[in-house]
């Protein structure tokens, strides 16, 4: 009998506990509805297209550390890997346009859109802030006979340059092809699994040249194993003051690994402004600035909504033109 009494007591205790908890949850919901108009009213979700610990993931995490404080709100990352960012885009498409879902965008997404058949179009986005800019630098082995970019171009005319980059259809690939077209030379593109593999194969002289971010070859540049020939940018890099840009050489090929955040078009303007302010303040903080320095970048990486929005549209247009002219998109 005592056993049954015990069980009953536990049951009633459990029931009342459940009731209390449920009523609290109910209260919480009422509270949320009351302030739903005020952004942010729930945690912000940042959608990435790459694996944990990669460049995009790490940049987003570093960005969020101070953003949480600035917006007095929680924020988290949802990785949606697949089909060159398309998976991430179709996920974002399914979300309300209220600024609580942010897409971390890279040239990968823009090239994927430019190829056609992606879940979203370039006009479906509004740029909020740029987080990093990392121009592509043309590296060669220091023991190679190529002392200037002209040497490399000339050599390519005799026998295609073995040019390393990441996968086919990526910004590395397209930038290499455009460089070859504009400089009237030939390349044989050798795809690798990542920047580290490209660098190793360049030092090991398996390939002739490669487009890398400066940071990916910085140590080997300093130790004298690699040499830089040109930067694919409109202006020279502060870290490489003596290296010419392709533009100076009359070659129209400026490409960079840029990263930034966007929201869906239709998000209220004041919400975008709040997000922009929160992100920009976070990126001005030493936590983010130290991260940039560690990655071999500087404060010029950061840009606001207007500049970033214009830039992604420009990159998209160029990517589209490049893919069409190369026959990789219709």
């Amino acid at each position: 009998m005592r056993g049954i009494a015990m069980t009953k007591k536990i049951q009633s205790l459990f029931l009342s506990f459940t009731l209390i908890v449920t009523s609290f949850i109910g209260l919480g919901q009422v509270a949320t509805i009351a302030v739903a108009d005020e952004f942010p009213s729930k945690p912000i979700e940042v959608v990435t297209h790459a694996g944990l610990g990669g460049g995009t993931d790490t940049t987003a995490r570093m960005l969020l550390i101070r953003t949480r404080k600035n917006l007095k709100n929680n924020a988290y990352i949802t990785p949606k890997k697949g089909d060159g960012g398309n998976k991430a885009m179709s996920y974002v498409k399914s979300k309300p346009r209220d600024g609580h879902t942010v897409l971390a965008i890279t040239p990968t997404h823009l090239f994927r859109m430019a190829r056609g058949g992606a879940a979203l179009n370039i006009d479906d986005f509004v740029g909020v802030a740029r987080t990093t800019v990392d121009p592509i630098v043309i590296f060669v082995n220091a023991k190679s006979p190529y002392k200037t970019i002209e040497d490399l171009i000339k050599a390519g005319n005799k026998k295609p340059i073995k040019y390393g980059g990441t996968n086919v259809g990526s910004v590395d690939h397209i930038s290499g092809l455009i460089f070859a077209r504009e400089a009237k030379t030939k390349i044989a593109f050798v795809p690798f699994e990542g920047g580290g593999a490209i660098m190793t194969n360049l030092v090991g002289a398996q390939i002739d040249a490669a487009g890398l971010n400066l940071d990916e070859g910085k140590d080997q540049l300093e130790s004298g194993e690699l040499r830089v020939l040109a930067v694919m940018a409109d202006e020279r890099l502060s870290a490489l003051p003596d290296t010419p840009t392709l533009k100076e050489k009359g070659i129209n090929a400026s490409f960079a690994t840029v990263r930034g955040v966007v929201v869906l078009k239709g998000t209220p303007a004041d919400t975008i402004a709040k997000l922009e302010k929160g992100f920009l303040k976070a990126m001005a903080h030493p936590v983010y600035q130290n991260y940039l320095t560690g990655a071999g970048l500087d404060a010029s990486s950061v840009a606001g909504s207007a500049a970033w929005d214009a830039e992604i549209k420009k990159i998209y247009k160029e990517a589209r033109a490049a893919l069409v002219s190369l026959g990789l998109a219709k």
Partner: protein
Amino acid sequence: MELISKITLILDLTTFLLILGSTIVGVLIGALPGLSSGMAIALLLPFTIYLEPNQAIAAMAALYCGGTFGGSITAILINAPGAPPAAATAFDGFPMAQNGQAGKALGMAAVSSVIGGIISLIVLIIFAPTLAKIAYKFGPPEYFALAIFGLSMLASISSKSPVKNLIGGLIGLFVATIGVHLTTGISRFTFSIDELFEGVSFVPVLIGLFAMSEIFVQASKSELLLERIKFSAIKLPSITEFKNCGKTILRSTGIGTFIGILPAEGGTVSAMIGYNEARRWSKNKENFGKGEIEGVAAPEAANNSATGGAMIPTLALGIPGSATTAVILGGFQIHGLRAGPYLFEQQPDLLYTIFYGMLLANFIFLVFGLLGAKIFSRISLIPRGFLWPSVFVFCLVGSYGLSQSMVDVYIMLISGVVGFFLRRSGFSPAPIIMGIVLGQLVENSLAQSIIIFDQNLFMFFTRPIAMTFFILTFLSLFYKPIKNLLTERKSK
């Protein structure tokens, strides 16, 4: 003797506790299928900015060590390798647990892991700058030859029939072709499923083939046949057993350290090759796959020595030797530090902190592993009706958690069903796993080699390292037939 005096770097309380905590967290996370040490480090990265750079990096390195070891626990107990490098540990570890020797398997895993880990660390601290250059010598042709050498063992990787092993290997190679082809950008067998464009994720397949198919096997056994597993389950290995595995452990350590240096698959490939070589040279060949203790020692020594090996190019060149060390390099960036030759010349303290941090981590998981073996091994005494349904939940969560994708869960379930029927028809999962692990490497490196060689395959003859591997492959395939032929002639 700068090295010895630098031990003081990790002797303050905060650093010590951080390393202790990270190692134990690493072991636990490593043990859970679907959660990897790389993931754990990535998630912890932002929080480390509040630590001293030295402490942060030491904690990450310790987590890496703990995580690699942790994978063996679930591989042995429930046939669910906690991380890909522990896949080969399940080949013999789980049969041992089923024979009532879980404690022995766990104890052997801990000891061989530590021996492998420590030797590779000593190699790291003394020879890193020299050995790191090996990474530069390995271009696509060398990787291709190495992968071919690995594949040459397919037929003999398990004690099942060689023909079935080869078929299994081909199934693995087929699965590895799914996704976008590296050099042409053409998508194969993706059926417009976005998640498949980057290939079938390895972890769900692993969980499916091992743990999920095991659930079906267990479910198909009649409950009446259930034997009470003897209490010997919690016994640790004897000194003689350790001694007998000595050679195997050393051989695997050499293999693991070397393959770890190569910036490729690291732990998983070295564990597979370590296991295979152990089987090749063992006196108890027939026992492999049925619960041979050497079959646990070999992959565990190999995958843990690969951690030290993988740190060599990571620290000396700034090239990650494995997925996890890539994340550790991200940690360097966050703290404004740089790996590379610079580290050895200008930041020796950081280097010593990493060395001692990893060394300490090895001792911590030795203690944790040996003490824990007695407790964990009791899992093998849990009645099947309770154990396997819980494993099923693990399988689901583990395959979903990796990238929060239901497609991965379906892949796991399909692999489970396919694995069950394959096992019933006398196939072993080992060659399938081997095929998947080496499939992409063999295909990509060949495609790259062809471009580099200007379509002229005879250029392989100009590469001494590649040729060495090809000759080893030839010997491993034809050594026996040739020997048999010679002895036959003599007897005539």
